[in-house]
Structure formats: structure tokens, C-alpha cells
């Protein structure tokens, strides 16, 4: 019952979703990127293991969730999110774009870019 009430409330909600890592990971990265043949621990395609939120954060930003002082790097660029490696791969048309099956919607990519623009924190 609680689940149904929450869903009805959420469907009626018009607030923009948060640009937080926890949200981005749970709603976009985990369901779209971590299946067995892709960026799971088993396959780690491209040497990228995204199997949980903290591991994925470190793999994509080059710093751990406990480290708020080191600069963000790697696949993420807070200065120019749309030119980051992550965003470029997600927006790339054709078979080389990511994910290869089940592409992300524009709103999902914009949510990832908004997270980068907000500093790419591990919150």
C-alpha cells in the first residue's frame, strides 16, 4: 500500500528531480549500464566497473566518495559537462554510443549533465 501511495504521489509531483549522484546512479546508471555483460564486476567492459554507487563514482570521476578535495576528472567535466567523455559517449549517435542497447532519453542525459554542472559531488 505504501508503494502505491508513493507512486501516486510521485506521478502527481512536478518538482524537478535532484541533480544528485545518488539519484543519477539509481535511476540512470544502475538500470542502464550494470547488466551482466556490460559494466558489472563480472564483465567490467572497458575496464569500467559500475556495480555500485561508490565504485561507479570513483570509476567515472577519478576520486572516491570520501575525497571531496581532489579535482574531479576522468569521464566527468564539471566545467563543460556537455563536452565530457561521459556525455559525449551518451550523446553519440550510431552503434558506438552508450548504452549500445536501450539508449538514454535526452532528459536522463540532461540530468547527468546537471549533476556535473553542480560540481559532480558524491551526494
Amino acid at each position, binding site marked *: 500500500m505504501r508503494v502505491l501511495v*508513493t507512486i501516486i504521489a510521485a506521478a502527481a509531483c*512536478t518538482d524537478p528531480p535532484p541533480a544528485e549522484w545518488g539519484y543519477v546512479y*539509481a*535511476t540512470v546508471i544502475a538500470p542502464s549500464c550494470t*547488466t*551482466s555483460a556490460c559494466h558489472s564486476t563480472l564483465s567490467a*567492459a572497458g575496464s569500467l566497473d559500475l556495480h555500485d554507487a561508490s565504485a561507479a563514482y570513483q570509476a567515472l570521476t577519478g576520486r572516491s566518495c570520501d575525497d571531496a578535495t581532489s579535482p574531479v576528472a576522468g569521464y566527468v567535466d564539471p566545467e563543460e559537462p556537455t563536452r565530457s567523455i561521459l556525455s559525449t559517449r551518451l550523446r553519440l549517435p550510431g552503434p*558506438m554510443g552508450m548504452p549500445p542497447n536501450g*539508449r538514454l*532519453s535526452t532528459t536522463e542525459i540532461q540530468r547527468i549533465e546537471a549533476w556535473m554542472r553542480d560540481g559532480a559531488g558524491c551526494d
Partner: protein
Amino acid sequence: MRLTSWFVAVIVVAWTHGAAAAYPEFQFSTGTTRCSECHFSPVGGGLINDYGRDEAATTISGTGDGRFMHGALELPSWFALGADVRIAGLGKRIRDGSEAAVFPMQADGYARVVRGNWSASITAGILAAIRKPQPFADRLGTREHYVQYQTTSREWYARAGRFFPTFGLRLPDHTAYVRRYTGLHTLEESYGIGAGVAKDTWEAHATVLTPLELRPQVGRHGWGIALQVEKLTDEVGSWSLQGKTLRHDDGRESWVGGTWKRWVASKDLLVAAELNAGVSELVASSVLVSQLVGYAAVHYRAGKPWGVALATHYHDADLRLRSNERSALEARFAWFPRAHFELSALVRGAAVAFELERGDVLGFLQLHYYL
């Protein structure tokens, strides 16, 4: 060339690890009402029993010898073996590009040993991770293994080990959205304890999920519970209610939903549908995320060794986000020319936010042999 090879590897592994599973379209349409009539497992899937092997040869294919090794070797009654091998070809059209590949999809062996009311079952094979160079031995693994107690009447069972929780239609296609987005994608089995009961007109199954990991596992694991109650209606259909909740490192995820199946004998059609609503509570965020995932299909089976189906998939990963939905429409054809053999084809068009521009069209051909 390098990029092309890489992409071929991507689509290959994206469709590998196919697990043997039940074919829900055979329920009701072949006269059977329960998965466990043809499978050793009380919830279907995996190794088929003597009745299932006989049905495969007579009711489904109409020819061949469905017994283990085509009847060449008779095993003692306390011991059962089997194997599944699948070879697949895949072609895909995505915006500004297309690719094709042929690849081994599954190579699994099954063993089941029985002593009295107790049994032990294992499914072991190649868990290919072909994008990650590994010694062959590291590619071997077991997706499912459990010890089970079942009453002599087969009404009650309890099992412990690694297996999927009983939830939903239990489709064989692990890319079906109702599997992929509810934590039931391939190799996402959990260690747990399950129990269930099957009465004349209903059955119920419960699974307690645990965070136990003996090797790095795929998917999210933690403490949780899954429940499903299915009611049979006049032996030509069923409906079920189901729920699942899982607490993992990143938060808690809960699903509620149901399934519905109906065999329309006058039209030779089996209609099946599943709908689940989910809520995720995130440790790192104050936000509750609500999801919706659904599936509907119409299967045509006219007592021939072939069948066709039309199916649709739907998933919304966050109901608060607009233009976020994933949907797909697919046509399937399956031909069982003789016992042990299956040739199937699938064409699926997928869209994002109901726009084909960010979607893709997939063609898939599969040759399946079981021992």
C-alpha cells in the same frame, strides 16, 4: 575496423548468458496448467522432467525422442542430467549505424540428484565475459544451485541456495523489461531461501533474499523478500499478485504488481500481461523514485510445432521525469521441428520517449539444442 570489432563484441555480450527458462506460452495452450508439470523446479525453468521431455516430443514438436540423449542412455530414477546450447545471430539498426554478429549464447549443463524427499540441483556452464580477457577456468560458473525438500505429494517445497526469486511471468527472455528492470536480468540470481505451496486452484511462493556473495555477483543483492500468489481460473488462465522488497548498499527497492494469463481456445491465442510499480528509497538522497514496468503479449499456438507472438514492453524509470519512457514492440516466431531442437526469430523495435530517433531495431535469430 577496431571500432567495428569492439561494437560486435558489445552486442555479442549484451545477448549472451541466456539462461534456460520456462516458456510461459506452453502453459494452458498444451493442456498443462503449472510450470512444475514439465520442470523439476516447482516454479519452472531449467531442467525438464520425464513428462516435460515427453510433451516436447509429442505435444509440441510431434516428432523425435525427447528423452535424455534422445533415449540412447537411460539414467537411474534418482539422477537427471541435461544441457542447453544456444547459437544466435543478431542484426541491429540504430541511428546512423548498423551491425551484425553471430555468437554462442549459452552453454549450460544441468544435474539433479534425488534421495527421498530431498534433491540437489545445479546449473553450471560458461559465464562468458568476453570483453574481459580471462583464463577459461575463470569463465566457468554456476548460475543456479540449491538443495530442496519437497513433500511426497509435491504440494509443499522449501529450498536453499542460489536461484531467482519467484516473481512475475518468469519469461525466458532476460531482456524483457519486466525482468531487466526488476532485478531479474541474466546472472542476477541471489542466494536465498524459498518455500511454496501448490494447491488445486492456487499456488504461493516466498523467497527470502540474502546479501551472500561467494563470487562477485551481477546486480544488486541484500536482505529482501519476494512473494507471489497465483490463482488458476478454470484451467485456462491465471492471475497473480506479487511483491518484492530489497535493501542493498544504495538504498531500498520495492515492487508490487501482478500478472494475468488467459488461453482462448477458440482462437488458439494465449494472452499474457504483467504490470509492476516500484519505489526506490536512496541512501544518498532524500528522494523517493517511483517506476512502472509492464509487458503484454499475444501468442498464437494452434497445436503445430511452431508459434508466433506479438509483445510490447514498457518502462518508466522515474514517473516525475517527462519524456523518459522506454517502450518496445516485438514479433516472435518459434519453431520446434523435432524434440530437442528450436529455431526462433525475433524483431524488436524500441523507442525512447516514444521517439524512434533514440531507439533501435533489432533482429535476432537463435538455434537452441537441449540434450
